[in-house]
Structures are given as C-alpha cells and as structure tokens.
C-alpha cells in the first residue's frame, strides 16, 4: 500500500487530495506508477495529459521517473513549483 498526494491543479483534475493504492508489484518506477494512474482515464488521464508539466516526490524528496516506489511510500504529484 502506498499513499498518493495530489497538489494544485493535479488535485483539481483528479478530484482527490489523498488516496491509497495497493501496488501490483513489490516495487515499480514512478514512470510505471504514472502509467497505471493515467490508465484510469477521466480526471486521472487529464492530470497526466502533459507529463512534462508533472513533478513527483517520493517520501518528500523530488523524484525522477526512474525512481522506485515501494509499499509504505508517500508519493506526491504536483505541477512545477511557483512559490517565492
């Protein structure tokens, strides 16, 4: 089981701020997780429509598409940051 968090317009598209997911394998890459989520269609497909505008953090650290996700991890998806 992993926790998935959605921020900013990704949250608005998925309609979810936080959810849990049972991983199909012991570990998968961030890229594979994105495919899995986008395949749900609807707001999830819309959230990942332009993958280049989506950033990811695994356990509160920025993560690249090839990073691995395991049970117990907290995975967050969000747009490029715009604070400051």
């Amino acid at each position, binding site marked *: 089981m992993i926790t998935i968090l959605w*921020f900013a317009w990704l949250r608005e598209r998925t309609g979810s701020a936080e959810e849990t997911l049972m991983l199909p394998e012991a570990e998968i890459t961030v890229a594979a997780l994105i495919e899995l989520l986008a395949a749900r269609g609807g707001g999830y497909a819309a959230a990942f429509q332009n993958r280049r505008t989506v950033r990811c953090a695994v356990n509160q*650290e920025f993560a690249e598409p090839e990073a691995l996700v395991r049970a117990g991890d907290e995975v967050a998806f969000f747009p490029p*940051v715009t604070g400051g």
Partner: protein
Amino acid sequence: MARILVSEADFDAGAEITALTAGRTDIGGIGCFIGTVRDAVPQAGAPIVAALTLEHYPAMTERAISRITAEAERRWSLLGCTVIHRVGRMLPGENIVLVLAASAHRQAALDATSFLIDWLKTKAPFWKREDLADGGSVWVEAREEDDAAAARWQTK
C-alpha cells in the same frame, strides 16, 4: 542554523532583521528580499488579482527549505539566515516571502540572498493560485526565467 518559518501569518521584516543582528558585531552586511503579492495591473487600473492563494506540501516544505539554506551556508560564510514563506490566502500588497542573509562582507550577503530566492522559487513545494476579480482563478505557471535564474547557481 537558519531560521525557517512557514506560516499563514504575516511577518515583520524589520523585527526579523533586528532578531538576526541583535548583539552582533561580526556582521558587516545584511541582504534582504521581500516578495509581495502584485496585482497584475491592467492598463485601465481596475484590479485583476483579487487574492493569491499559496498551497504547499506541509510534510515536505520545511525539509526542502532546509536543504536550500544548508546549501547557501555551504557556499557562503553566513552569520545568519532567515527564510519565512507564507501560505494560504493573501491580498495584493501583502507579503509572501522574506529572505535574509547576513555575512561579514556584503557580496556574500547579497549573493546568498539572490541564491536563496532563486532556489526557493524552483525547489520548494509551493504553488500559487490567483483568484481573479471576475470570480475565476488560475494556477500560476512556472516561468522559464525562474529556471534560468536558479540554473545560474548550478555551475558554482
């Protein structure tokens, strides 16, 4: 060593400067940057931006800022460093972010100040939403020039 604060409450830049420098005689220069909510002033003058909402990723935010201030302290001999970033809803003219960097010499203080705000804008999990006067709202898009400003510091 840095003072880091993420809060809905406004900050008092003068009080923060005083707190950073009180009783110190080793500081020669303090650099400071304050970011404020700017109304995207149209030609006519009616406000476009009614409010700005800053969303963040609470579990990650302070950690990300700590990374940035630690990097600044690694690059420059800082004698004090403060980063305060507000979250929540703010009106045009209100403060968003405060960066302070103190050093024995001015160049380190000024360079660290620029570095801190450049990296905060590109490496800390904050997202701005503009609530418009017409009732709509838009998520502010990341700007290429912010990435370019942050990248200036990569080669050092």
